[in-house]
């Protein structure tokens, strides 16, 4: 049908694409640029906040919260619901070692927000800027025509996208934010380093036995995979339990009581402890106490779970992915299209928000210099920026996952001592927290 000349098109189904569109609109240098968002799903509108909590939640770091508030979406989230947490305890199932992240100055370490709440907030904000950002719901791109690296006579230097309904669009910059099975990335032929973990994550919304302050995030590394309890409200928490495919299937299908028991024993049971490791751990603990006679945090137990929300149990497979290139001429990948990570560190969506922040920064500078937005010179700046950060985080997360997937004594000893040592060195902990909160 028609050809619409657009400045930037985002093919996306997920949080980062919507927030990217928002952030771009908000930046003053983009005032005269038109942005089109292609969304495969339907428009999600809530009349009223549903009472039941959704089982998919994300841990939003302070840096991401700043990004969201910079274009007004955070206010919508605050008006709906979110939960701030101040402390995080991470400990091992095979030993007494633990690490406690605590912000002394009473700042929030992060926020647990349901994915649906974030989407709704972003959709509301998009409506507010509909003069510059157009959203096409239920539209899927089926074909792409990429430009040649330098202008050839009579061929358009822009990207052409064919939609499912036959219409075509042309744009100066295509941003691919369509998840880890990115169609944009495949169409561009960008190599993706990926492997599947033999794990699935089980999620559920849990009711606690008794109401507590509930501002602590808990994560325990079991040999089968980490189990995490994230606070949602005084009486509710969200479960993310990464375990083998078979165990995950079992957990989802078992009846409620057994499921609750499984969760509680996963957090409380010391069945995996061995005497050898316990003594080795205790030895280091004495040494640390000797050298640094300040407060030593004792291991605390998470609140016990009473029941689980019906129909909130679900599982999905986990894997790792990293695109070899984030950018091509007139193409940029952000979010899960560029990288996919294990949820054990709670960093997946935050990396996506970081991508957006960086991309908008580079595009804004380019626009202020009158550059063609699809030009590689600033896109490679974004790629270098983010690849450095993301590769490090991906490697660290993968390493942690592998390190904690075993109960072989040497590795358990190594990680016990490592964890205890890290817990003792406050500057190191602060560095880790700072890196994770960006």
């Amino acid at each position, binding site marked *: 049908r028609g050809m619409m*000349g657009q400045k930037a098109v985002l093919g996306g189904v997920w949080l980062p694409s919507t927030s990217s569109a928002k952030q771009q609109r908000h930046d*003053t*240098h*983009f*005032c*005269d*640029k038109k942005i089109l968002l292609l969304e495969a799903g339907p428009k999600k509108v809530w009349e009223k906040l549903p009472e039941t909590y959704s089982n998919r939640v994300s841990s939003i770091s302070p840096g991401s919260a700043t990004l969201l508030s910079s274009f007004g979406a955070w206010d919508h989230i605050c008006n709906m619901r979110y939960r701030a947490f101040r402390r995080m305890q991470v400990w091992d199932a095979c030993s007494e070692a633990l690490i406690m992240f605590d912000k002394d100055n009473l700042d929030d370490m992060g926020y647990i927000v349901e994915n649906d709440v974030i989407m709704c907030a972003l959709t509301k904000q998009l409506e507010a800027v509909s003069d510059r950002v157009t959203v096409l719901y239920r539209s899927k791109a089926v074909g792409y025509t990429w430009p040649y*690296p*330098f*202008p050839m*006579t009579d061929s*358009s*230097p*822009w990207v052409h996208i064919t939609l499912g309904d036959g219409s075509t669009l042309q744009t100066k910059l295509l941003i691919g934010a369509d998840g880890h099975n990115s169609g944009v990335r495949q169409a561009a032929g960008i190599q993706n380093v990926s492997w599947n973990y033999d794990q699935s994550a089980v999620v559920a919304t849990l009711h606690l036995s008794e109401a507590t302050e509930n501002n602590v995030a808990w994560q325990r590394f079991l040999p089968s995979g980490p189990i995490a309890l994230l606070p949602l409200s005084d009486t509710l928490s969200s479960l993310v339990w990464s375990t083998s495919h078979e165990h995950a299937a079992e957990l989802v299908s078992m009846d409620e009581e057994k499921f609750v028991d499984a969760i509680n024993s996963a957090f409380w049971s010391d069945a995996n402890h061995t005497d050898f490791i316990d003594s080795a751990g205790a030895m280091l603990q004495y040494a640390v106490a000797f050298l640094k006679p300040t407060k030593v945090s004792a291991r605390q137990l998470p609140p016990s779970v009473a029941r689980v929300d019906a129909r909130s149990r679900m599982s999905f497979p986990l894997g790792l992915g990293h695109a070899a290139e984030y950018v091509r001429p007139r193409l940029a990948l952000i979010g899960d299209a560029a990288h996919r990570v294990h949820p054990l560190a709670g960093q997946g969506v935050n990396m996506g928000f970081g991508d957006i922040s960086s991309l908008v920064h580079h595009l804004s500078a380019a*626009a*202020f*210099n*009158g*550059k*063609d937005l699809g*030009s*590689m*010179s600033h896109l490679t700046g974004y790629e270098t920026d983010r690849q450095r950060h993301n590769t490090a985080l991906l490697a660290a997360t993968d390493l942690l996952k592998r390190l904690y997937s075993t109960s072989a004594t040497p590795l358990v000893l190594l990680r016990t001592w490592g964890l205890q040592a890290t817990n003792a060195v406050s500057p190191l902990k602060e560095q880790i927290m700072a890196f994770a909160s960006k």
Partner: protein
Amino acid sequence: MWGGSKLSCSGNRFLGVVISRYRGTQTECTRLITSAVYSENQFSWTPQTKPWVFSEYRIMWFKSYRMTFACLNRIKIYRYPWTRLYSTSRTTVDSSEVKTFLALAHRWWDEQGIYAPLHSMNDLRVPFIRDNLLKTVADHQPGKPLSGMKILDVGCGGGLLTEPLGRLGASVTGIDPVDENIKTAQHHKSFDPILDKRIEYRACSLEEIVEETTEAFDAVVASEVVEHVIDLETFIQCCCQVLKPGGSLFITTINKTQLSYALGIVFAEQIAGIVPKGTHTWEKFVSPEKLESILESNGLSVQSVAGMLYNPFSGYWHWSENTSLNYAAHAVKSGVQDHPVPDEFVFKGETEELRGQDSTNAGAQEELKK
């Protein structure tokens, strides 16, 4: 009306270069111009409404040391007294330079190609122009900081600098004596409807713009141009003429030093191939001091001069204190219309009176020389 130019008939391929062109006769013009460039035939002159142009061409032939005199007689000459204050009788376009650029006209927009250093120079020169122009306005439209400004890009080539300025909101006129460059530039901007409206390209010389308009532009940009012109003095005079009072002139060029010979000619052209061979002639490089003195003597007060350094390994440019290689200069035309010397003398203070006297003397000497 269009005019062709006379060509040398004595065997050296001297290419006539100054070709005026009016809108509407573009295709005819391009045909003529292309053949003018390549063939050695002569064309008859069709004199029409701008007779003093011909005397300029005649003088161009006298001044250029490469010309042969054989075909002078065939040019019809109309003598008319001219009433302009400055002499525009000399052209600044060097035809041999035209030839060099002609061969590379289609390579402009390959960002990783031979013009890559010029593409990355935009990271310095666009902010330089933009920020200095923004200083002259009280506030600006976000998203289009240069909107409302009229800019002339002299020697625009393929439009590498013209397009960013257009994107920032300015109405830009890009001129270049090489027609192939203008064609490339036109083709490239045609894909973007917004740029298409904001930018206008013309294959002509600065002198022709001077004839048509005076004091029409808020800014004139001559980036990597002054090291290619024959007569710098005339060039600067022409720039000054088309500038509005208070308008800005931006120049980026190469310094004439031993270092610039070693790095700019020997290394860049002959060894590393960063710049195509034969692009630059060391004798035509201009030192900042010489440029400043020419600017000041033509009523343009120099606001800033900054050095630029190119890192061939990273492909990026950097600002630098050191002006011994590349540098950028920003000058502003004084706000008063007339010849600057008497006004300096009259309006400024006592110490500057002395300076005014000196420049009057210098001015008098220059006029005597002429």
